[in-house]
């Protein structure tokens, strides 16, 4: 089945009308993940843009057509560990147990429970939609926010110019946990993303699967809503967000990028980087190149 067939023939399990912003990457990712996992799924969506957009429901209604819970910001992986333990005990391993959390709930306060669940090999798929900050509460900095980004907690002023530190490389850290399946994905490369969601669900039947998906955020990044997919593609083509997967310890670049575009081509469309001068942009290019070199080393043997 081609990915277009998959997307065309599967049921959308999310409310048709949710209050995610125009052009939201998170909404796109959530819909696709659930289209692929299907109705036999339990999902945990902690506080963040998606939960804030109403998919866990309001009053007495549900925002999804499947069972959903809003865990705490910091316990998605541990709460779902209890759910999956129970489902295995009941002999109902067919039920997909999925967590879908933003980068704050994943990389910051939720990281301890995430790391532990991966170390224990809990049977679940954990999807991080990474929009590089706490967007639901007004774009505060997270540990995946890129260096130089202007956020509401790393503002640009007379002496400071956005976030000072490089992002934490969560997908690589998760891969080093020895999880059953780890991959990065981009909605701009939909075929690749669909395949990785399928693989992630399959891997969640015997271990911990982790997907880290870049999620363009027109509101926080201050970009045009129609440009989200274009940005997601450029993030990959510039090696700002390279696409790879790690399966049973084998690293593979799923979308090879022999002729990367300059990272400035990606950054140009984003006002959050607008204040950066040549030196700062060069530093970002250097970080991206180094990160890519590391990935090349890890994937060289097999690609």
């Amino acid at each position, binding site marked *: 089945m081609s990915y277009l067939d998959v997307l065309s023939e599967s049921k959308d399990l999310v409310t048709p009308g949710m209050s995610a912003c125009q052009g939201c990457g998170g909404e796109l990712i959530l*819909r696709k993940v659930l289209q692929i996992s299907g109705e036999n799924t339990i999902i945990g969506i902690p506080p963040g843009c998606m939960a804030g957009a109403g998919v866990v429901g309001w009053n007495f209604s549900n925002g999804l057509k499947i069972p959903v819970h809003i865990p705490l910001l910091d316990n998605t992986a541990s709460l779902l560990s209890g759910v999956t333990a129970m489902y295995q005990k009941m002999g109902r391993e067919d039920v997909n147990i999925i967590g879908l959390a933003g980068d704050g709930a994943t990389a910051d306060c939720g990281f301890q429970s995430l790391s532990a669940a991966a170390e224990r090999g809990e049977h679940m798929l954990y999807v991080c939609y990474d929009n590089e900050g706490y967007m639901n509460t007004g774009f505060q900095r997270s540990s995946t926010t890129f260096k130089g980004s202007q956020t509401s907690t790393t503002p640009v002023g007379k002496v400071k110019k956005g976030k000072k530190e490089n992002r934490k490389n969560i997908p690589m850290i998760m891969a080093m946990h020895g999880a059953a399946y780890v991959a990065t994905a981009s909605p701009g490369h*939909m075929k690749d993303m669909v395949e990785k969601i399928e693989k992630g669900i399959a891997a969640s039947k015997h271990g911990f699967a982790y997907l880290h998906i870049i999620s363009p955020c027109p509101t926080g990044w201050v970009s045009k809503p129609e440009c989200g997919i274009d940005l997601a593609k450029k993030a990959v083509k510039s090696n700002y967000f390279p696409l790879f997967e790690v399966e049973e310890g084998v690293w593979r670049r799923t979308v090879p990028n022999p002729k990367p575009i300059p990272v400035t081509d990606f950054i140009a469309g984003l006002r959050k980087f607008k204040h950066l001068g040549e030196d700062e942009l060069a530093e970002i290019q250097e970080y991206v190149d180094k990160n890519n070199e590391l990935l090349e080393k890890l994937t060289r043997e097999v690609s």
Partner: protein
Amino acid sequence: MRKYISPIGKEGLYVLDTASWRTYRPVMDKEACIECGACMSFCPVNSIYRDQEKKYYISYDYCKGCGICANECPKDAITMMLEGEGENE
């Protein structure tokens, strides 16, 4: 009377009228469409469908008018038109 035990939501689906957000609407030129499926796969709201004949069409019920479909169409077969202008499908 409703019994208040745990906060749960199972009395129907929570649905917002997101179509009302729209300023511009995507309009598809079916002649120009090459049926590549980009619009459907990239639509964040899943408002673009493929029918039995593998033809694509846009539903305006919840489309927020973000313009991704128009921006991603390789044949420029989708145009964003100001609400109220142009022809309705």
